[in-house]
């Protein structure tokens, strides 16, 4: 095996933080592909440009995603990375593993790939970095026969992902692990066979802490919330105070709706005014607990800057029950896709399409009424559409008012 001189990236083996260069060299010890990846990266560091070409058309028969073609411009100089494709494995909910399962994944990868991975990729898949085209069908047979399916890529439903939820968190408002599994199974076709205009991501967080960043990284964000009150354990409140918490400064004054009061003894919450931001609960987890009806808020539209600027997801359904078999949620997702499919041009994310076509078209398309919880503030400009139906309804309301002698605004 060729030994590359790598003075630049060797610098990145120094220092306390774990080194990705060390990882690449570990894999390179007995793997030609990983070894060439090391030499290839050193060259990037020397010239300050990358050499990977645009993704090519590779995949497994029948699927339209899960494998991302990657070729180097420098295939002659570094033959081990001439083909260096990515295989995405669909991760289990919550990224839980047993050592036996992961070792099996490693064994197969060592046999057919570079031995390099990302655990995990940005979307959530277990990413296997670097293999050749002729190994793809074999890799798929090896993994799928052992219960591991490919994740997604391209214009498809991307591999759904969720927070740790009921597995290890007291704050979750629904079973994120189970919903994630259920939706992934329900939409296998949409995951593996790209039928959309562009990518569509679903992420599930159990509360407003949003540990999977669903509000920023998912076309559809399913964020847990509740409708009941926050139960206060006053003894634990006293313990927090005793242990040095300045409850007025850290909790009361930081409450965004100013709905908490504390008289030095008891903590009181005006639950009707609480917006359920999770600050007080997360800081006083032993003392405060959400109770009552649980479910989720559905937000739509977030994405990174390409093409016309970043978006954060916004509310479309303020509260939905999230209980197996999740029929209402699945129906909603299908309706959203149908509207998107009817209205999107190629490479348009749903958030951008809603911006183009307007929330009215979208909400009518999915059968949701307009409500103030969807917005930060109403429109500031006077340019708006009035349909014939709108005008008829306004007139009918006024006629009704004339009859009753009572205004209804």
């Amino acid at each position, binding site marked *: 095996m060729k030994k590359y001189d790598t003075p630049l990236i060797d610098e990145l083996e120094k220092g306390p933080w774990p080194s990705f260069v060390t990882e690449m060299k570990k894999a390179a010890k007995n793997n030609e592909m990983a070894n060439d990846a090391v030499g290839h990266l050193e060259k990037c560091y020397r010239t300050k440009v990358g050499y990977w070409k645009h993704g090519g*058309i590779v*995949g497994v*028969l*029948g699927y339209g*995603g899960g494998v991302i073609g990657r070729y180097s411009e420098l295939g002659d100089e570094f033959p081990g990375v001439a083909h260096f494709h990515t295989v995405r494995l669909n991760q289990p909910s919550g990224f839980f593993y047993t050592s036996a399962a992961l070792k099996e994944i490693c064994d197969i990868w060592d046999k057919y790939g570079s031995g390099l991975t990302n655990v995990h990729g940005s979307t959530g898949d277990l990413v296997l970095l670097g293999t050749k085209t002729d190994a793809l069908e074999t890799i798929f047979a090896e993994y799928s026969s052992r219960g591991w399916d490919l994740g997604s890529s391209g214009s498809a439903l991307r591999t759904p992902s969720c927070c740790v939820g009921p597995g290890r968190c007291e704050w979750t408002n629904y079973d994120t692990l189970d919903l994630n599994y259920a939706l992934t199974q329900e939409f296998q076709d949409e995951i593996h*066979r790209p039928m959309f205009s562009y990518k569509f991501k679903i992420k599930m967080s159990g509360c407003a802490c949003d540990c999977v960043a669903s509000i920023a990284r998912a076309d559809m964000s399913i964020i847990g919330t509740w409708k009941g009150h926050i139960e206060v354990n006053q003894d634990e409140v006293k313990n927090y105070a005793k242990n040095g918490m300045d409850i007025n400064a850290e909790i009361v004054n930081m409450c965004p709706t100013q709905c908490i009061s504390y008289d030095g003894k008891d903590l009181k919450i005006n639950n009707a005014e609480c917006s359920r931001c999770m600050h007080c609960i997360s800081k006083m987890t032993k003392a405060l607990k959400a109770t009552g009806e649980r479910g989720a808020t559905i937000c739509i539209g977030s994405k990174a800057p390409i093409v016309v600027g970043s978006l954060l997801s916004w509310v479309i359904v303020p509260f939905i029950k999230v209980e197996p078999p999740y029929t209402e949620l699945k129906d909603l997702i299908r309706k959203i896709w149908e509207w998107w499919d009817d209205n999107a041009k190629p490479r348009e994310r749903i958030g951008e399409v809603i911006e183009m076509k307007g929330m009215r078209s979208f909400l009518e398309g999915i059968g949701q009424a307009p409500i103030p919880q969807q917005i930060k503030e109403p429109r500031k400009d006077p340019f708006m559409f009035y349909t014939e139906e709108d005008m008829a309804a306004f007139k009918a309301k006024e006629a009704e008012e004339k009859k009753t002698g009572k205004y209804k605004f």
Partner: protein
Amino acid sequence: MEMAELQDKIFAFCEAAKGKKKLKEKDILIGVSTELSLEKDEVKKALREMINVGRLMYSYGGGASSVEIPSEEYLREKGMIK
């Protein structure tokens, strides 16, 4: 309509677009179902069968996915031709 006949129509539809327009799966479903007055699901089923045996394939380029007629190289790699 016979499955084989429908699949030939789908293939012809893709062939006509080759080099001109990248077809999304939806473009084929709408195009062929309108042309033949069929249900989209029926076209979808036929299309999926064609993809499963390598008569058509999912492709990817310019950031988006499409459906295309496979190259000889692809068919050779999948063991479809020698």
